[in-house]
């Protein structure tokens, strides 16, 4: 996917030169191998720093919220879905965003690679379907397909759902057999097992809120966890408070989460926070036939009322 880099640079360069946008949001090379950072280029020179490869995991819709500027975004499938969600939720206007569509063949699972190679990586590069990883311990060429992030293996829209220009050819739409298999595994547990599962899952959480900050749909000016009057949830390391945070944050994402994986990517403790949001994605898909960010003209299901809404839980 690093072949997109040149194209993104040239599109970004001309947009900035012609003054069509105030900034172009993409990624730039990080300071260590296998790292790229979200980056806003404001000048033609800065546009030359833009890169794209299989480590561009963060969600760039996070950087356009409530902006008054005109912004170009290099958007993968998931980013584009979050841009649509932003448009629907009045966080940005469609004519303020110039979407440079980036057809995506999946991002690599950095955590897994680091686990296998040790944290002292010295080189990471890719060539089509192959990635080469070198650390102080070993050097190997791997098939990218075998090292995709979990959310990329169940992605339904690798191509941007809306764009003004493309940075490469559209990729074939994948056939995902059962994207909710992980949720079904938990659904099959009995209540005690479920509770234990989620207690263990969140046990290491240090409440840094990096997951929330990385999430494009977590944009409330004051998050419920930061509110002090009233204080909705305790602020310490109490187990129930930690669970309340995760549980409520997930519910706030119901019908809005695109399963982009930015939250998990940002977590310093490796907590699989998508285990919560994925359940709600499954529910909205089954109950309302809804997946977030596909249609600029429709409001999310928890935001609308229809007489056809399922109501068999109300007695």
């Amino acid at each position, binding site marked *: 996917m690093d072949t997109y880099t040149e194209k993104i640079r040239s599109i970004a360069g001309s947009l900035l030169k012609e003054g069509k946008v105030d900034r172009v949001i993409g990624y730039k090379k990080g300071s260590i191998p296998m790292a790229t950072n979200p980056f806003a280029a404001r000048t033609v020179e800065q546009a030359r720093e833009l890169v794209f490869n299989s480590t561009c995991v963060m969600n760039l819709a996070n950087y356009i919220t409530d902006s008054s500027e005109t912004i170009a975004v290099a958007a993968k499938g998931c980013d584009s879905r979050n841009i649509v969600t932003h448009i629907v939720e009045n966080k940005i206007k469609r004519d303020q965003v110039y979407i440079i569509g980036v057809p995506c063949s999946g991002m690599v699972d950095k955590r897994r690679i680091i686990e296998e190679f040790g944290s002292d990586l010295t080189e990471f590069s890719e060539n089509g379907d192959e990635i080469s990883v070198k650390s102080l311990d070993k050097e190997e060429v791997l098939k990218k397909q075998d090292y995709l992030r979990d959310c990329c293996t169940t992605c339904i829209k690798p191509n941007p759902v809306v764009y003004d220009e493309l940075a490469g050819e559209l990729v074939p739409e994948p056939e995902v057999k059962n994207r909710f298999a992980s949720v079904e595994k938990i659904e099959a547990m009995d209540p005690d097992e479920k*509770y234990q599962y989620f207690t263990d899952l969140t046990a290491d959480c240090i409440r840094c809120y990096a997951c929330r900050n990385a999430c494009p749909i977590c944009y409330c000016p004051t998050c419920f966890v930061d509110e002090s009057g009233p204080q909705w949830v305790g602020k310490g390391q109490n187990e129930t408070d930690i669970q309340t945070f995760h549980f409520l944050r997930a519910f706030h994402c119901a019908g809005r989460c695109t399963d982009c994986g930015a939250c998990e990517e940002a977590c310093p403790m490796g907590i699989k926070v998508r285990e919560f949001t994925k359940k709600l994605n499954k529910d909205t898909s089954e109950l309302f036939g809804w997946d977030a960010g596909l249609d600029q003209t429709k409001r999310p299901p928890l935001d609308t009322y229809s007489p056809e809404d399922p109501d068999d839980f109300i007695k």
Partner: protein
Amino acid sequence: MGNLIEHIGIERERIHFSWISSAEATKFVDVVKDITEKVRALGPNEKFKKIYN
């Protein structure tokens, strides 16, 4: 919401949603009886509770 609560391991029978008009006193009584019976059968909830000490 009920689905998510159930998903994290709280028994579904502890969660009830009902639509009762102020004129439906008997329905209110029935619903409360029903809830009480179901929750009593489950016993006290030991999950997702905060202990102050």
